[in-house]
């Protein structure tokens, strides 16, 4: 894998983006503070309200954690899928098929349980 190229282009894009932003500041100029309201964050026609007690639902964390778990399970399917043809020709097909069938059964049970327990309900 041409890692050198990946690192090179990453640095190139970072420098490119930095230069673009500097250029835009050069041509457009820095924002002039004509009033406090101009530098406030957006608000719909009322004085700015602090986000101090913005409450975000625990659902977001729950979704993220469940995502991690299912993501790991899906990642395990990748080497299996890429080698399934090899396993079929080498005679290990039934064993590997059975192994993944059990794994998938656990996966499906997990998904079914999450849906049934209403962990994925949004209201």
């Amino acid at each position, binding site marked *: 894998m041409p890692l050198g190229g990946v690192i090179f282009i990453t640095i190139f894009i970072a420098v490119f*983006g930095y230069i673009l932003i500097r250029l835009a500041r050069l041509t457009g100029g820095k924002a002039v503070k004509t009033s406090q309201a101009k530098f406030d964050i957006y608000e719909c026609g009322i004085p700015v309200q602090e986000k101090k007690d913005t409450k975000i639902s625990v659902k977001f964390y729950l979704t993220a954690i469940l995502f991690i778990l299912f993501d790991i399970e899906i990642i395990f399917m990748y080497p299996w899928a890429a080698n399934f043809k090899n396993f079929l020709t080498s005679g290990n097909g039934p064993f590997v098929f059975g192994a993944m069938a059990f794994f998938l059964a656990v996966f499906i049970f997990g998904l079914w349980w999450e849906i049934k327990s209403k962990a994925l309900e949004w209201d």
Partner: protein
Amino acid sequence: MTSMGTTGFEITVNLIKTVLVFLMMVQAVPILVWLERRGSAFIQNRFGPNRVGPLGLLQLLADAVKFLTKEDFAPEKGNRFMFYAAPVFALIPAAIAYMAIPMSVPLKLESATFLIQGFEINVGIVFVLGISSLAAYTILMAGWGSGSKFSLMGAMRASAQIISYELALGLSIVGVILMYGTFNFNEMILQQQGPLSFQAFGYTVSTVALPNWGIFYQPVGMILFFAATFAESNRLPFDLAEGEAELVAGFHTEYGGFKMLMFFIGEYGHMMIASGLMATFFFGGYGIPYVSIQDVQNFGMNLFGSEIAANVFNTVVHFLMYNLKFGLFLWIFIHVRWTLPRFRYDQLMDLGWKTMLPWALANTMVTATVMFVTSYFMF
């Protein structure tokens, strides 16, 4: 091999190539924006930008001038570093992931062979999925760096949406990997050459009427994959991140000018990745249906009489074919945006977790079972 070639010439050409692919991506964005605005006007029976230049084409230039002359603004309450870093970071995952997609047959010159892609990655799919999943950071950085509650809520929704659909996306291509037995894009494209033919129960089934494309083996996977990529690139009908009615503009509420444009490049970059992957997985990549790579090479040989010219001809023809498919999917992205209404947030999450994930699972199981049964039982 961790380098980009063996000789200095090869390394230089390969590095310049990555820069070229990146610039190609960046300059495609204004064209897509123009296409999107004209296309939306066409779909909604309006005119769209038609005053600046022929067909409004110079509107792109006018927009660029406007971007350049805007004041550089950052809200006082936000975190300045994050606020400026987020748009720059938006470019990186999109560009690097796009570079792994092959765009044409390798160009053979006298001394060296050059791939028509940023870099050849051995485990292409895993690389593209991994790198494009880093895009979630852009959104979170922008949302938090702005210091505004609308931005933060938009970022939260967008990142939860992106990670939810990443599951369906990742699972929908397990069937594709099963079919081709490889992670490598080039190998996949070569397997899709020629007429449709497969082995089942010890027989070889073949027809010349259809090309050997992935869509004929994985239709459900194709639909799931394409739908999931809409959510990944935050496009309608999944653009909950910027639901104007509730969240002003989502995570980029506080942005304007060039910084906003960079988010745009990132979003269009993800569209381009999705279109490129669609072509590669399901529509034969740069392959031309009914015509093999060797046919094009022979035709070029007859036309020009020199091998190098034939190689260049071959590469250019396949590059055009790739761009035809690529452009078609980009147009579908634009068309869908102006056709479908937006989902509600709970509908969106339900669709991802309760509909697409089970369907992708079923697709995987059916694919594996069919492969297993057809190769183990002979009649």
